[in-house]
């Protein structure tokens, strides 16, 4: 599993900023000096924080999971939700972002013979799309279940040929009606290796299916963050207690997470 080797604060120039679904945008950018810093491993599931464009209004960096990373740059998908992301949406190609990354612990790799089942809900799409491409490059054939509220919010992304895509929407306006876990059948779980990113109830449902089937499951947890590097302990994720008499236990979404084995989470 990828650990935090070197955290870098850098600046990158936006090369492409496009709408991938209603309220969802993808920013692609390149490093100002042309290439990634040394020992830079922005694997799927890891994230970066972006300084709000009109810092200090608002002030705190916003975390976004990488949706792609290559030698010369990286990408992330975000949802226009509040002031910081509305300001981000105003940026254009040529504008420069102040980022810190790569942060946190990403997805592990499936064991040999395991079939990756990747489940995305809403804005969880960024890291799941990146993971799907990365696994396909390794010769695996992931099943990707992509949940969205409605057809307008189904992201327009390129998927590797090796991936089997199942789309579902809450209102049935595209694909299967219902949330992403509803698109999964028990037989899908055979030999499955689950990875999920999205709303908590969705990830919990995937976790329960994985547990029933005795299969591994990894989830990417979203928490409000301040420092992003493990110092402030603001992004605590409640962990399942090893035994009932143990008190509450937490891990930091920004260092030990955001990706955890779903069996460790206090659902």
């Amino acid at each position, binding site marked *: 599993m990828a650990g935090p080797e070197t*955290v870098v604060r850098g600046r990158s120039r936006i090369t492409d900023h496009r709408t991938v679904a209603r309220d969802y945008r993808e920013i692609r950018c390149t490093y100002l000096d042309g290439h990634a810093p040394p020992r830079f491993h922005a694997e799927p599931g890891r994230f970066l924080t972006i300084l709000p464009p009109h810092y200090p209004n608002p*002030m705190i960096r916003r975390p976004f999971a990488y949706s792609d990373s290559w030698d010369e740059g990286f990408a992330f998908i975000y949802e226009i939700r509040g002031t910081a992301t509305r300001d981000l949406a105003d940026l254009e190609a040529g504008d420069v972002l102040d980022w810190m990354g790569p942060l946190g612990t990403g997805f592990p790799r499936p064991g040999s013979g395991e079939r990756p089942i990747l489940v995305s809900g809403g804005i969880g799409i960024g890291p799941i799309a990146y993971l799907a491409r990365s696994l396909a490059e390794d010769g695996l054939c992931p099943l990707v279940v992509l949940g969205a509220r409605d057809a307008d919010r189904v992201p327009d992304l390129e998927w590797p040929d090796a991936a089997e895509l199942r789309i579902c929407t809450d209102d049935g306006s595209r694909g299967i009606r219902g949330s992403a876990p509803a698109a999964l059948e028990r037989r899908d779980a055979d030999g499955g290796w689950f990875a999920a990113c999205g709303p908590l109830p969705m990830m919990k449902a995937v976790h329960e299916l994985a547990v029933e089937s005795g299969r591994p499951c990894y989830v990417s947890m979203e928490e*409000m963050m301040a420092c992003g590097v493990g110092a402030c*302990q603001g992004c605590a994720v409640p962990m399942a207690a090893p035994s009932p008499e143990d008190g509450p*236990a937490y891990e930091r979404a920004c260092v030990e997470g955001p990706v955890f084995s779903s069996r460790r989470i206090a659902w």
Partner: protein
Amino acid sequence: MVASGPDLSVVIADRRLPNPVGVASGTFGFGEEYADLVNLAALGAVYTKAVTPEPRAGNAPPRLAETPAGLINAIGLANPGLEGFLREKVRILEALPCPAIVNVAGAAEDDYVSVAEAMDTVDAVWGIELNVSCPNVDHGGMAFGTDPAVLEGLTRRVRDVCRKPLIVKLSPNVTDIAETARAAEAGGADALSCINTLTGMKVDIQSRRPVIPRGTGGLSGPAIRPVGVAAVWRVSKAVGIPIVGLGGITSADDALEYLLAGASAVQVGTALFSDPSVPERVLEGIRSYMVRERIPAIGDLHGYF
């Protein structure tokens, strides 16, 4: 290299900090988390996360809420406890290229005394900062910092077991901060940190509940800077010991406000989260101001008002 630049060192008790710009407790862990991003050798001091006798998991999330120019936190003194500190954190402090000041907290007087006593024997610990002002725990914390008689008694007990520089971190959540400042000085404090966070609340109007489950948290960031500067100014008129000013410092200009109001040193906290280069930039900005204004030492910034 100018041989006779301004003297940026700060004397507390009989010891000297290399420069006035430290990083605030709770924002910097034990010094390793920011190692890739901050030039640790340029820091006047690292004020560590609070240490309590027993390990603490901290509060249930959410622990953070952003407000205009501010951040509310309710971490709940999450820390590895004294044994965990001695086992895991001392070696980190030993490797720091700057002084380490350990923030000490507890639920009862004996807690503070036992942690302070232990710190006195750790070479890597330059001094301690007594946390009598944490608003985010059910027992202890701020209760020790709001009653002058209780604060004086606690400070004296810690003083009796601690030969290292003893800094008491004052709460702004009092009617008259000069009173608690005088109490800490009377109890034997060598310096005062001023201020801890202000009690604050953010309400989620959709759920009709406070964002932070326990209701209130501690507000930090630029929103509280004028409160901190005023507190430093009032405390500086009330005591004769050095003051470490903090609350909302994002630039050298902000830090100079604190120094001119009577502080001898400052801490950068919340601003680190957005920009880890703030402490070094603050230090350079203070240095150039002193050169430009021909001010030979930090103490010469005092007394203008």
